[in-house]
């Protein structure tokens, strides 16, 4: 059953491997997946550990419900101290790895040390081997996965791998599985590279018996019907995540030319419908695929129709790629977006960070802050598609002064470039912002400023704030499973009530990350999607564990608090522009110039924004400095952490 999946402690320096059960009382407190990883990270790292040292631990996990009869329990979570931010590193991806890890007998891996030479782990039916990676080191992410399957003579092996960018220690190298399933944020691929760990391969055939199989299947039918019948998921199943682009770019919610504009005008060639046409042309009409146990099928498949990589197969692009390689560098050409998407997938680099770093450099070049000498003669201007593609390769191989500089991430790069380059770097906690522009949406601005892993939309974004939902609908969603009778507004431009929405979403997303469920199956883009009430039943039918919706909420709150404790220990201070809950000055100083009539002219009111942070801290039980109050820790049972109980 799911509850007998184990935790393995692997020391790559000594080769020592220990396997332990996960006590039920720990499950009740942290559930699994990201929440339990946060507990393990806080307990197994020392304050101030160098992210690239052998003492940093790398955590890889499946959610509690992986490989059960619950829908879309596909997510793999990876955590460590981030080499990009020096704070919490955390990333989450779909695909097929997590269920395979669970079938192989494990839910959590705690990896420390550094192998003497490149290696990979092979995990199969309760066994863990450390194997020589000499035949796969240097290969692309896709080549690596095929090579492992050939070496192990098993086409069903699923692997988490790094590409060349992880090997060259690009600080935003990602971890990948499949063609495009990426644990992209916070540089977890760099951590694997620093440990000489090229891949983690899994193959499992052990049974995960379901506690109440008939009820689990019956309830899952209801769950699937709720998901599959929604408009948002039907659209997503046709166009993939880029479907979001049509809405956000219509009203002016997209960063363009780094952060100069909030809309990418006349970008018809990179609209999802155009990408869909290309995918249809190259892969046929049925070109959408899904992750394990998912009915949405948002994974578009395509072959590059033209250009230097014509005929190469890839998946995506995701919504984020349209921003990273379209709007931000102002390259409005489908071939360019698809080519860049292919390259970062093969190199193993974060789409968002790569596109944002290059777009920032483009703005610096146009301002004269970066010189031609520093770019080795490259005309790094907005709209220069060839320069964009060239810079991706230079970053991966750390080629030239600028390639090497950008590979170290935004803050170190700004220190090397100097002048006022940092002012143009749109980041929070050292991680670049998503390509969305939150100047017209205070709730979303609060989300990116306070997200635990740096600027991010998948930690606490109340995306439905843009749907203009009636207050009574908002109240039904946001007053459950804990009562809330404070303000809630359908108006996306106001500041009142938004901190509660961010707080609720933060706990909602932590909960699905603990369970291993995809966010497209909860209140992220669809207000009528399952949440706490539904998960309580899913957990019970599949594992036999009794959780009330409030128990799940409490565990999620606890997980978020322990992430906060980790960040505070590593130097987070509230107003620090590099390590705090604060936005780049451009949000407060530069108004939106494009978009819907109510969006143009908008910027974030700093005083009201600070009040929102105060209010969010109140909801989270933090003091004015953003530190958990003693009574908060006591209430959540965290006053003794780190407790070293697991």
């Amino acid at each position, binding site marked *: 059953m799911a509850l007998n999946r184990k935790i393995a402690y692997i020391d790559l320096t000594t080769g020592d491997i220990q396997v332990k059960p996960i006590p039920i009382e720990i499950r009740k407190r942290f559930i699994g997946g990201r929440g339990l990883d946060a507990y393990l990270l806080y307990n197994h790292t020392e304050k101030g550990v160098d992210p690239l040292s052998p003492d940093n631990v790398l955590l890889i996990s499946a959610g509690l419900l992986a490989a059960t009869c619950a829908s879309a329990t596909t997510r793999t979570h990876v955590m460590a101290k981030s080499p990009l931010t020096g704070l919490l590193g955390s990333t989450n991806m779909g695909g097929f790895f997590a269920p395979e890890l669970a079938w192989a007998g494990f839910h959590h891996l705690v990896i420390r040390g550094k192998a003497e030479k490149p290696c990979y782990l092979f995990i199969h039916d309760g066994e863990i081997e450390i194997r020589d990676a000499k035949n796969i080191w240097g290969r692309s992410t896709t080549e690596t996965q095929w090579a492992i399957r050939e070496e192990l003579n098993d086409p069903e092996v699923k692997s988490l791998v790094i590409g060349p960018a992880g090997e060259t220690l690009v600080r935003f190298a990602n971890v990948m599985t499949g063609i495009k399933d990426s644990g992209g944020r916070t540089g977890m691929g760099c951590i694997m590279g620093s440990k000489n760990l090229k891949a983690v391969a899994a193959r499992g055939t052990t049974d995960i018996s379901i506690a109440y199989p008939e009820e689990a299947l019956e309830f899952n039918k209801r769950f699937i019907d709720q998901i599959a019948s929604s408009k948002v998921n039907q*659209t997503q199943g*046709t166009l993939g995540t880029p479907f979001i682009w*049509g809405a956000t770019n219509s009203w002016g919610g997209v960063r363009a030319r780094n952060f100069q504009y909030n809309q990418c005008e006349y970008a018809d060639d990179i609209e999802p419908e155009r990408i869909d046409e290309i995918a249809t042309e190259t892969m046929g009409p049925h070109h959408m695929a899904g992750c394990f146990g998912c009915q949405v099928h948002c994974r578009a498949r395509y072959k590059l129709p033209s250009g230097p990589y014509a005929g190469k197969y890839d998946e995506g692009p995701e919504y984020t790629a349209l921003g990273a390689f379209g709007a931000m560098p102002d390259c409005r050409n489908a071939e360019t977006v698809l080519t860049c998407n292919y390259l970062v997938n093969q190199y193993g680099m974060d789409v968002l960070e790569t596109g944002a770093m290059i777009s920032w450099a483009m703005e610096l070049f146009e301002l004269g802050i970066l010189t031609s000498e520093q770019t080795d003669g490259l005309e790094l201007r907005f709209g220069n598609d060839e320069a964009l593609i060239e810079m991706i390769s230079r970053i991966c191989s750390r080629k030239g002064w600028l390639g090497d500089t950008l590979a170290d991430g935004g803050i170190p790069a700004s220190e090397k470039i100097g002048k006022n380059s940092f002012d143009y770097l749109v980041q929070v906690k050292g991680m670049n912002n998503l390509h969305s522009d939150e100047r017209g949406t205070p709730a979303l601005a609060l989300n990116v400023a306070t997200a635990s892993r740096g600027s991010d939309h998948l930690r606490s974004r109340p995306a439905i704030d843009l749907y203009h939902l009636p207050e009574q609908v908002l109240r039904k969603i946001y007053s459950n499973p804990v009562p809330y009778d404070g303000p809630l507004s359908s108006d996306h431009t106001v500041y009142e009530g938004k901190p509660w929405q961010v707080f609720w979403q933060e706990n909602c997303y932590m909960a699905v990350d603990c369970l291993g469920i995809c966010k497209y199956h909860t209140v992220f883009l669809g207000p009528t999607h399952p949440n706490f009430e539904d998960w309580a039943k899913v957990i019970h039918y599949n594992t036999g564990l009794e959780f009330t919706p409030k128990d799940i909420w409490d565990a999620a709150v606890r997980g978020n608090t322990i992430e906060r404790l980790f960040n505070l220990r590593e130097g987070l201070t509230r107003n620090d522009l590099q390590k705090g809950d604060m936005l780049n000055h451009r949000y407060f100083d530069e108004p939106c110039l494009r978009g*819907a009539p109510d969006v143009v002219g908008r910027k974030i009111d700093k005083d009201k924004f600070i009040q929102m942070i105060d209010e969010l801290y109140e909801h989270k039980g933090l003091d004015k400095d953003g530190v958990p109050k003693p009574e908060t820790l006591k209430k959540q049972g965290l006053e003794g952490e780190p407790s070293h109980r697991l």
Partner: protein
Amino acid sequence: MANEEISTAEALRKTRTYGKIRCHNPSCMGRLTPEAGQAHVKCPECGMEFRVHWIRPDFPRIRGPVWEVNRKIAEEALKKKEKDQ
């Protein structure tokens, strides 16, 4: 099992609408009901115009703005706001 109480998410399902789209002006969000196959739609509330894509013959979605129209609306709105300040 089948008789179990429906959850909040399931209860909210009746708020879904099919065949309609919302204006992409987030302060308007007017309901638009394009005719089958219609390529453009104009919001009667705020005047913004959009290009329409059909997921299925009964399932429209907004593909993107009619750039010239919406850009003009945005420029006028920005000018007015700057003047008011």
